[in-house]
């Protein structure tokens, strides 16, 4: 395998008619990295992927593969392997023919083609299925054929467009592990497009969170979860309580008049809101806490119990470990919410 290649996106703007799909996108994917584009549908993540593959044209900016601008290259000259969401296996060809296609287009000698087809199918564990038609395979097998077809041409980078979305829940978990293992073995720079944060968190080295054509934050899954840079990332990754308010001197005043002292050195930016995760707060019986109110709702989740507490006009979620039925709070009980100051985040949009 040739050496892994980095991808750089520099100042990219892309519009379809009056719709501005990608806005000033800058991004660097490191060689050999398993990288995710994560965001809700319509955020531009697939468009960005298609831009790299050459299926979309940017109005401004550059896409650099291994430092080289690929703008003048049509899709068929980019050597960028893409696995399509629908897999796009050609139904009129056998599995082997599908995998051989890209090699035939490169006019490789027949013996070389046969060797590499066998190797690619071996790699995804489908050596026995070479003669089958795609329609005779299960969804997971089809997905592996699509991957084999792409890696057979030994692309510079591998692009995966929601490759797990057509699989059932159980398959997804095993296939994503296989994908990760395969990527590690090949050392291939890989971009994975998904709207599912669990998929991105479990297999990717780093994630770019996208929203409305903008990259909102780039980081490792844990960095993004622990230190979201803005309200979008905080609310998109996991559950978060978000309370309106404003900074007054050394405290943050939540709407409703309750004041939380700001720890030394913490500054709430303008327009900031208070953000914290349900599992970082705890419930107390004393209503001396700045955040307090009655329990309005209770959900038993197994290991934890999720309480909803009405605080002013807002509702706060707090996860408490489940100990015993006797220790449960009832709907209507007045409670206080205890929040360690270092767990409180003050984020703007």
């Amino acid at each position, binding site marked *: 395998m040739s050496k892994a290649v980095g991808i750089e996106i520099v100042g990219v703007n892309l519009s379809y008619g009056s719709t501005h799909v990608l806005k000033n996108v800058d991004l660097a994917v490191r060689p050999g990295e398993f990288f995710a584009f994560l965001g809700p549908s319509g955020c531009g993540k697939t468009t960005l992927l298609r831009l790299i593959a050459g299926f979309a044209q940017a109005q401004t900016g550059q896409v650099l593969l291994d430092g080289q601008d690929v703008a003048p290259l*049509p899709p068929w000259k980019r050597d*960028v392997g*893409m696995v*399509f969401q*629908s897999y*796009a296996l*050609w*139904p009129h060809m056998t599995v082997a023919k599908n995998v051989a296609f*890209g090699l035939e*287009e490169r006019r490789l000698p027949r013996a070389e083609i046969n060797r590499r087809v066998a190797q690619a199918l071996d790699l995804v564990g489908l050596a026995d299925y070479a003669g089958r038609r795609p329609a005779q395979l299960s969804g997971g097998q089809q997905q592996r054929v699509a991957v084999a077809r792409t890696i057979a041409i030994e692309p510079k980078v591998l692009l995966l467009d929601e490759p797990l979305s057509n699989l059932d829940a159980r398959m997804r978990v095993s296939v994503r592990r296989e994908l990760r293992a395969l990527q590690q073995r090949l050392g291939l720079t890989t971009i994975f497009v998904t709207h599912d944060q669990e998929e991105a968190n479990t297999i990717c080295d780093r994630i770019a969170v996208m929203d409305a054509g903008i990259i909102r934050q780039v980081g490792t899954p844990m960095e993004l979860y622990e230190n979201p840079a803005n309200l979008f990332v905080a609310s998109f990754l996991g559950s978060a309580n978000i309370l309106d308010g404003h900074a007054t001197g050394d405290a943050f005043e939540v709407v409703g008049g309750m004041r939380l002292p700001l720890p030394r050195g913490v500054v709430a930016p303008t327009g900031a809101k208070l953000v914290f995760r349900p599992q970082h707060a705890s419930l107390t019986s004393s209503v001396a806490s700045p955040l307090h109110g009655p329990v309005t709702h209770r959900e038993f989740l197994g290991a934890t119990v999720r309480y909803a507490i009405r605080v002013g006009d807002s509702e706060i979620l707090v996860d408490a470990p489940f100990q015993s039925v006797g220790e449960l709070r009832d709907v209507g009980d007045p409670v206080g919410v205890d929040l360690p100051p270092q767990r409180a985040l003050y984020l703007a949009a």
Partner: protein
Amino acid sequence: MALAGTRSAGQATLALAIALFLGVFLVVPVATVIYVAFTEKGGGALTLINFLDFARTDLFVRSFWNSVYVSAMTVVWASALALPLAYLTTRFEFRGAMLVQTLGFLPLVMPPFVGAVAMQLLFGRNGSVNLLLDGWFDFKIGFMEGLNGVIFLQAIHYFPFILVNLSAALRNIDRAMEEAAQNLGSHGLRLFRRIALPLALPGYIAGASLVFVKVFDDVATPLLLNVKEMLAPQAYLRITSIGIDDPMGYVISVVLIGVAVATMWASAQVLKGKDYATTQRGGGGLARRKLKPRESVLAYAVVILILALVLAPHVGLLLLSFATVWSFSPLPDGYTLAHYARVLDDSSVYIKNTLLYSSLAAAIDVAIGGAIAYLVLRTRLPGRQWLDWAASTALAVPGVVLGIGYLRAFYGVKLPDGTPLAALWIVIVLAIAIRRLPYALRAAYAALQQISVSLEEAAENLGATKARTVRRIVVPLMTGGLLAGFVTSFATAAVELSAVLMLVQSNFDAPLAYGLYVLMQTPAGRGAGAALGVIAVIIVAVCMGVAQLAADRSQRARGLDI
């Protein structure tokens, strides 16, 4: 349970009535033809002797192979015309695309026999094109020599069947299918050949087999071009010149049916397991590429050339209808309105008959087609599928065969005053209705399939009986689709000739297509024949426009309502 009993009793009565109609006017005539072909002449014994005679007669064997050759070559040439157009319109941003798509309606507007004589004048040995070629470059092209003429005429008339099917198939290919190929290094024509074309093969085969069968069954076009040694014309000539008792006409009919069935069976075999549509998710096709200036010029040249060919019969017909004398010259010597005056004077009975026959036939088709669609899609009546199959077999029965069947089956049936049933004009209507029934049936299926069953269940839930639900919910919602089916049946019935040719007993009962055929036989009648042809084209074109409008409107109404 009592309610369910009466309900299915009503449905059963309806189904039996339709079965009876199809039995008497489709199954019996066709069965008669087959039976006669397999029985000894004069006697009643079953025999294969007639088929042996057929195989031993050089004329028939030659005619058979001529028909095969003409049909196959028509498919080849029609494909050669359709392929570049389909590729251009589905894969490139191309202004001419709309123009090309409207070509799709032309063969419905005018069947090939109508323009046959006009095409002789344009492309014949001494036609306009060859006169010009001879004058300028000293050579002629035998466009219209013998079988070539039939192939030429049929190909430019029928290539849109391939074009429409192929373009639709190309458009329905999931764009990821082609993007994946590009991603792996393929592009341009090579990509088209390796990915798009194989995936569009079902559409191509559907169009090509239809063209093959239509050309094989056509009686009038070869006859008007004076080509007699083809199978369908032989069937007609045999019955009309030797008589209704001669078994050869029946043997040829069985061969025609056999070829139609075999073609459809073969295309079904080829397509088996290739129904790619179900394995493809999103439609849309590949993003269309802009043509470079030089490519653009080439593309327009191709489109304009093909368009000129397609319009040639229409232009020729129009010229002929206004021409005083047109012979051995590129254009007519002078122009006149006399032919139209003559047609409207003498031949208005043809037009009147056509309007009457076609509207009756179309009404019968819509009523029966709608009823069969309802019985098949909405009831659990045992055997309902048979109605559909029976009605659809009409597709495999050439018009000339149906005509012969009617003659044989109904000539012996006499009315109280002694006239044979087969001589009544209503028999012509019934033959046309049977011929067009499959089209109306498809339209009715399409219309009914778009109506969610829950709309009917809601009506029943609110207390409407089955019959009232059909009247108040189903029929109003199907109106647009049924209307489109009516107009399509009407328009194509207006130019139906091959069955009519067998059944017309007197000019007084003849429809327009027949009058046109008779007039076109003589040089003196050509002008009037062409005028009649232009009138037919106008009637049909107006109808197609109305059908399109009706279909569009009902689509839109549904969009608003639901």
